């Protein structure tokens, strides 16, 4: 499927590489030194653009930042997670302790 153009003004997420692995600071541990330092941010598209293309966005504080368009109307993925049985067991157990005193 070919991506349609994303219209100017759309809220998008952009990505840019800040440092390549060989530009990383000397003090970083070996695993970190193997990967680039990358940055993402969000803003309103300055002009019509497409995914994976370089675009400019205006951020919430009004700065213009450039990067590769990676997400349109990006979703927050964090949530409350799956139920954790070990956690659910705590309430009843401590209430019983308070009642029984043991």
């Amino acid at each position, binding site marked *: 499927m070919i991506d349609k153009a994303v219209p100017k003004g759309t809220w998008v997420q952009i990505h840019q590489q*800040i*440092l390549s692995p060989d*530009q*990383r*600071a000397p*003090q*970083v*541990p070996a*695993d*970190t030194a*193997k*990967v*680039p*330092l*990358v*940055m*993402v*941010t*969000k*803003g309103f598209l300055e002009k019509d653009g497409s995914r994976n293309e370089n675009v400019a966005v205006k*951020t*919430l*504080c*009004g*700065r213009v*930042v450039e990067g590769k368009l990676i997400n349109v109307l990006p979703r*927050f*993925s*964090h*949530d*409350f*997670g*799956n*139920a*954790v049985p*070990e*956690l659910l*067991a*705590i*309430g009843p157990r*401590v*209430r019983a*302790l*308070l009642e029984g*005193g*043991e």
Partner: protein
Amino acid sequence: MKDNSYQAVMARSNEIMKKAIGMDYSQFERGQLAFDYQAMMTEAGYSLEEVIAVQRETGVGNTPLYELKNITKLARINAPKGKGARIFLKDEASNPSGSFKARRAALAVYHAAKNGYKGVVAATSGNYGAAVASQAAIRGLKSIIVQEAFDSKGIYQPEIEEKGRACEAYGSEVLQLSVGPELFYVFLRVLEDTGFFNASLYTPYAIAGVETLGWEIVQQLQDQYSLKPDMVVVTNAGGGNLTGTARGLRKAGSDALVVGASVDLKGLHMASDQDFNRKSFTTGHTGFGVPFTTWPDRADVPRNAARPLRYLDRYVTITQGEAFYVTELLAQLEGLERGPAGNVSLAAAVALARELDEDQILVVQETEYTGAGKHVNAQLSFARKNGIEISVGNPADSVPGQSIILPEHPSQIQAVDMDMDDLRRSYLKHALGILNGAKPQPEDISFLAEDCRVTPEFIESFAQGVK
């Protein structure tokens, strides 16, 4: 055209910082190592009365103080006869952005506005981002928050994703980075590009902002319960929470013992891409607490106003499982659903209460808001997904990055003391290392003694031992 390479920007770091803080630290420098801490705090900071007035303007502070009667009762089970202090909690989640960090941000943003800056920048993956964003929103300043947020696979620590969302909600531009200390380079570039104020956590004003917290504890205990605090437990990371609270307690005339508490994350490297999502706490842990205690001047300002060794009576660690467990206790027994990172000191308090008499008063001085990502269930669920083993048993058997053990019984919660003299020796080793073999001058000796709360003789004998 300006050279914006990593090396070039780092090389002009001092120049960028000076402009972005608008304060000349050299006026306080004395001797080779020494600087006049008290002068810096009084001349460059704000008085308690000024801080109270600034915070009132933006709704910061005056958070409720609760007595945790059920948790106290639970802590007394298996305590020696007559032991088990009354535990009180300062509900800092009631601040505008949901944590005590609003106190620091209130002063930083006020100071920025007063000095004509159009915006503020903060490098933080923690609650401070939302605090700065919220305070900037109130005062009509722009804000940019720079976060270390995800690993090289693009996986966010859920707590940081939530904090990033909160910053956006308050109108901040949020720059999110993969793992690594070079975040500081991005931070410097943003400061240079915008001319905004560096809302560092470690300036005299940011620390002065926390003094009201210590002050309120004393006032509220007196007004509401006619009591005085015997011990105040403070979650320790960069040292500002501890320093500011202790200074506020002293200003209110309290001589309560000040205990720092951190989550033990021994064995995990803070700059490691692979370790990044193997920890369930992004702050309040030993990965910040120990290095900042043993050498405060590693912060984003020339001289750190947060100097924990000056105020620490004890420094204890607890495990991740214990902090999660007490977070559940706080919700289940006290009806307060709060974020786990704010409950590190509560976990320590459950253990420390058993050492104190029943009529003594122990105050836990913070909570933080909770929500998606920043919730005990979110964190445990995320840890399990990342292969961390979660079980119920003795938390002392857990290994950071490999296992999280929730206590089976509240009596298993332990506060493990660090050796204060070891911390001091580590600090001194660092300090004398800077001298590179030169002899510390008398003013250096007295500064070092003050900075780690020992006698000048302790410093002299340590210095001789190093040679």
